[in-house]
């Protein structure tokens, strides 16, 4: 059995977001890149499944769409235990473009993991699109996955409760938080071993993205917080009336 985990290359969550002068592109200068947190949890669960005593998993492959500078994100995935990596050498233009590129390399896998969203553009679309392009079943909002004797048991969070499903392979599981406790940290030996693991660079196919970005806007700066002393209730009411205008 082979597992594929899709790996998004996203800015570190502490990044101060800036855009270029005409506000049409993210300014990546000085940005630290990380594995999309949802994908990182998916990879963690895939590794846990492989390590179980009766594991039938031969290999875990990770894949992304990105230029050469995104390889360190794939190397990190290899350092925590993925067996090999595939990078489709293209700029990830939109969800459809990314899913189309991944569909060329996501062949022959029994189980594919995709994070439910990415922490950069929060598109939440690649997983579902990829399943359609591959013509395989998918299930979303997966918060638990067990593999017993080659059959899958899936847990999903649903409104007001949870749902347990039995699923057949092949399957694309779109996972959310809860799929694994916390991501693994690469150990120094793992980082060294990742050097010699296979990283294949695939040529992108011709495909037109379905969207184009007109402009980005930063949210309005947060207003400063005013503290009102506990015996100044009148002043608080005045501020709520006159400044905040919520009363």
């Amino acid at each position, binding site marked *: 059995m082979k597992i594929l985990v899709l790996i998004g290359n996203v800015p570190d*969550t*502490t990044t101060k977001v800036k855009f270029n002068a005409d506000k049409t592109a993210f300014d990546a200068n*000085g940005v*630290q890149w*990380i594995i999309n*947190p949802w994908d*990182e*949890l998916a990879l963690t669960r895939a590794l846990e499944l492989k390590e179980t005593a009766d594991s039938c998993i031969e290999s875990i492959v990770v894949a992304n769409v990105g230029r050469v500078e995104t*390889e*360190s994100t794939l*190397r*990190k995935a290899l*350092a925590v235990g993925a067996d090999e990596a595939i990078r489709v050498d293209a700029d990830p233009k939109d969800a459809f473009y990314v899913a189309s590129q991944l569909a060329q390399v996501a062949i022959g896998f029994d189980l594919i993991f995709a994070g439910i969203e990415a922490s950069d553009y929060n598109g939440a679309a690649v997983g579902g699109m990829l399943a359609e392009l591959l013509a395989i079943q998918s299930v979303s909002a997966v918060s638990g996955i067990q593999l017993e004797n080659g059959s899958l048991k899936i847990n999903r969070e649903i409104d007001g409760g949870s749902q347990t499903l039995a699923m057949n392979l092949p399957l694309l599981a779109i996972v959310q*938080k809860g799929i694994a406790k*916390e*991501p693994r*940290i*690469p*150990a*120094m*030996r*793992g*980082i*060294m071993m990742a*050097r010699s693991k296979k990283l294949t660079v695939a040529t992108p196919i011709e495909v037109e993205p379905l969207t184009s970005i007109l402009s980005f806007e930063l949210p309005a700066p947060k207003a*400063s917080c005013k503290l009102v002393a506990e015996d100044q209730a009148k002043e608080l009411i005045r501020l709520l009336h006159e400044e905040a205008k919520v009363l």
Partner: protein
Amino acid sequence: MSDTKYKAPDHFQVDELFSEEHKIVRASIRAWVDRSVKPIIEDYANRAAFPVHLVKELGAIGAFGPYIPEEYGGAGLDHMSYGLIMQELERGDSGIRSMASVQSSLVMYPIYAFGSEEQRKKYLPKLASGEMIGCFGLTEPNHGSDPGAMETHVEDKGNHYLLHGAKMWITNASIADIAIVWAKDEQGVIRGMIVEKGWKGFTAPETHGKWSLRASVTGELVFDDVIVPKENVLPNIQGLKGPMMCLNSARYGIAWGVIGAAMDCYDAALRYSLERSQFGKPIASFQLQQKKLAEALTEITKAQLLTWRLGTLRDAGKATAAQISMAKRNNVFMALNIARETRQILGAMGITGDYPIMRHMMNLESVITYEGTHDVHLLITGNEITGIPAFK
């Protein structure tokens, strides 16, 4: 998913000088410190207790002997990686970094560099995994800056040595399974040997009452006619050069480590200054606070560039003892000054354990003294310039 707010300053884009692998190394140790050190360290420092459960974790992440080859349990990484590991550990606490420094540079390094194949195989894998803890005995009660005058000595008894003497200010002393001990033989030549816990006549009492490195174990090593088998002597080194080469490796790690402490202080003070309001605006608006922050960033930037260059030289086998000495001295002084100045930005809050600065400041008072004092390091540079050793 980490919710830490820490942001490491990189004003001169020094990151571009590191390989992608170096950045993964740094990010890994940073994440481990956020997960395992930051949430507990104030409590341990407060109680003057060493978080001994972290030893196995440090071994698992690969913080012990990362530059030791894989066949002996290391990761086979370069010295730049070792430096970055030390930097990130010391962002957590100098005591945790000291533990890893000693294990790596003062215990694993001499066994690897000067030990027999049997010694390497017997000790290095267990030291790398954290199954075994080591310590290093050079300093004595009457011999600190002048270790060549040590009194600890061995008598040759044919098939073994008899070890007498005492060592002081030894990190990990009372929790160590083995000690690398430096002692003079009957000809007055300094020899290194591996002494194991539990051997008759060997005791390691802990030193209490420290106001610095409180989350780290410090103690004495006392040898009262300890029988040391000859196969426990490090065969491939004689003289003061042996311990000095170990100290070179450790000082190299300190030069990097203290940048982590300085960056943690800077980061805490910067965020506090933007959040704390006085006279109706953030205290970061005031010139005197900006002066402290701007000077801190300038000094951190200089230290980052210095250690990057030092790492490049060390990986090329070209870093001299005098260069390492200068970097250790400069960077520790830099970090201590930043801790003192940034503590003031936090006002009274700065003296509490709610923020890391006071703990870093107290730790750095040890770091500026151990592994060659601030003064002696200056004289090493003086000797380099003039050819005249003023410390003798």
